[in-house]
């Protein structure tokens, strides 16, 4: 009868969070730049950092429905925190990430009280305002941040005193990729926890949540703080591997770019931000090589095409294709 065709509830839940072959293939593919494109390791490092940043946005936007146009605020604070620690004489990279996580997490926690009270358009305005506010503050506090000239004098020590940051980006990419993978594992665990389910509930119907006894605002504050911490770590990775921090880390452009990448890749799918970041940054690299002045023209075209043809992003399109062809994932 039906019992034979319908999987039991526990089997079903376990099936949801099973590691898929496509996931394993994805992570193996991230090792390819070491082997086939060593001259692109510097770019690969940028991609890994931006992918981590996009992952943090996916946690709030894709899984919880919290729209943000100012997510660079946390990325930037993380970058400056790690950069300043190094400038003041503490260039140890791993603890640098911790310092950045603390600074960005603190800012995230404080601002989350405002974020949790609003939705939709108001949220876009508030996050946008917050981002602009912070960038201007960093600009005027040039005694601390170096202002428009950027933060000078950052030196990142070797990892464990063993792995020296080289010019070609071997260590940098290995370091950023490891951070991305470890934080991805944490994010994946979070998504398949009761808390992750509650976040999806907020995304699906935030109004309904209090009626089933959910402390919605508390959930939003928690995930917003976690996302801020991850964005801060991404910022710190950039500061440490490039040994510079410019005002651009806090800029509106960065907030907008990461949103574009996430939508391009597909929101609420964990991998959307990673794929989106890779496609976007490789495309930018290629297009700007062809036609340096007009690359945003091509990006604009790509964005419109993807949203029109694949409303759920690249990943949404791929999973649709897989279902059509009945390929096991």
């Amino acid at each position: 009868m039906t019992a034979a065709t319908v999987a039991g509830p526990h089997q079903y839940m376990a099936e949801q969070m099973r590691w898929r072959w496509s996931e394993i293939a994805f992570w193996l593919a991230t090792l390819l730049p070491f082997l086939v494109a060593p001259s692109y390791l510097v770019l690969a490092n940028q991609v890994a950092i931006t992918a981590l940043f996009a992952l943090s946005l996916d946690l709030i936007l894709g899984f919880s429905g919290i729209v943000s146009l100012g997510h660079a605020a946390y990325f930037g604070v993380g970058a400056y925190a790690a950069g300043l620690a190094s400038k003041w004489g503490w260039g140890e990279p791993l603890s640098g990430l911790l310092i950045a996580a603390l600074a960005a997490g603190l800012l995230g926690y404080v601002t989350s009280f405002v974020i949790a009270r609003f939705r939709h358009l108001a949220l876009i305005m508030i996050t946008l305002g917050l981002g602009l506010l912070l960038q201007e503050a960093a600009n005027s506090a040039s005694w601390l941040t170096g202002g428009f000239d950027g933060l000078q004098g950052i030196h990142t020590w070797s990892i464990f005193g063993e792995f020296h940051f080289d010019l070609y980006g071997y260590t940098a990419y290995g370091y950023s990729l490891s951070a991305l993978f470890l934080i991805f594992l944490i994010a994946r665990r979070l998504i398949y926890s009761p808390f992750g389910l509650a976040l999806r509930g907020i995304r699906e119907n935030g109004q309904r949540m209090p009626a089933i006894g959910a402390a919605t605002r508390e959930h939003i504050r928690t995930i917003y703080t976690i996302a801020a911490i991850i964005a801060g770590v991404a910022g710190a990775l950039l500061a440490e591997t490039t040994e510079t921090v410019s005002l651009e880390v806090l800029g509106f452009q960065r907030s907008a770019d990461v949103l574009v990448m996430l939508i391009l890749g597909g929101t609420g799918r964990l991998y959307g931000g990673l794929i989106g970041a890779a496609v976007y940054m490789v495309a930018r690299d290629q297009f700007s090589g062809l036609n340096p002045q007009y690359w945003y023209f091509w990006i604009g075209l790509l964005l419109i095409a993807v949203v029109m043809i694949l409303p759920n992003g690249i990943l949404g399109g791929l999973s649709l294709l897989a279902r059509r062809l009945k390929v096991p994932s």
Partner: protein
Amino acid sequence: MSENALAARGVNKSFGSLVVAADVEINLPQGVRYALIGPNGAGKTTLINLMTGMLRPDAGHIFLGDEDITALPPEQRVWRGLVRTFQINSLFPHLTALESVTLAVCERRRVARTWWRPLTAYRSEVDEAYEILSSLMLAPVSHRLTRELAYGQQRLLEIALALATRPKVLLLDEPAAGVPREESQELFTAIAGLSRDITVLFIEHDMELVFRFASRVIVMVGGRVLVEGTPQEIASDPQVRAVYLGKATGKADHG
């Protein structure tokens, strides 16, 4: 000491000059099946909103048992056992039925904050959710996305979500709205089968269902409680006939 599961005392609410609740007094004794009826715009849904904290009264108090809950936010009323469903499907479209109910169970058991343990570790929560779905005949579709469920199944899922919170008092806002007649009988049979520990109040327009499933009836008109009594008393009340039943039976004659 009161024997009431839920009570409203002198509740008033107006939006500008529009009075939606005027000195509303309601006492729901433990375990009773109440119907709340009245013409459109009588303030029935508003009263549910006021009692569950979705709206704040301008004056008056709401009591759950002996506790004054007037100042509590909606989710804290849910934790104390006052739960509602919605007239218009208000569900989680891209969650499966099982996920939705598991979510509600997790929130009730206060484990929805844990993010470091996978859902598969919460076997008893999942079991409980599955049992609730089975009791409402939703087990065969429990792995389907909510938005893919038939309308009647979505109405049942509304009730499943409410049950997952372990309500003491359940307020059902037109549970059978939009459901075909044969199915609404089934739906009400499921409601009638709920534990007697749960006090139920439902809004319903279909008089046949009201008279069949309610042990007492409250009639509201223009934000006021007009009369309260057994279905027989209500059916023979001349005031009620004048303002409400006349119209309703008129409608039934056409149908």
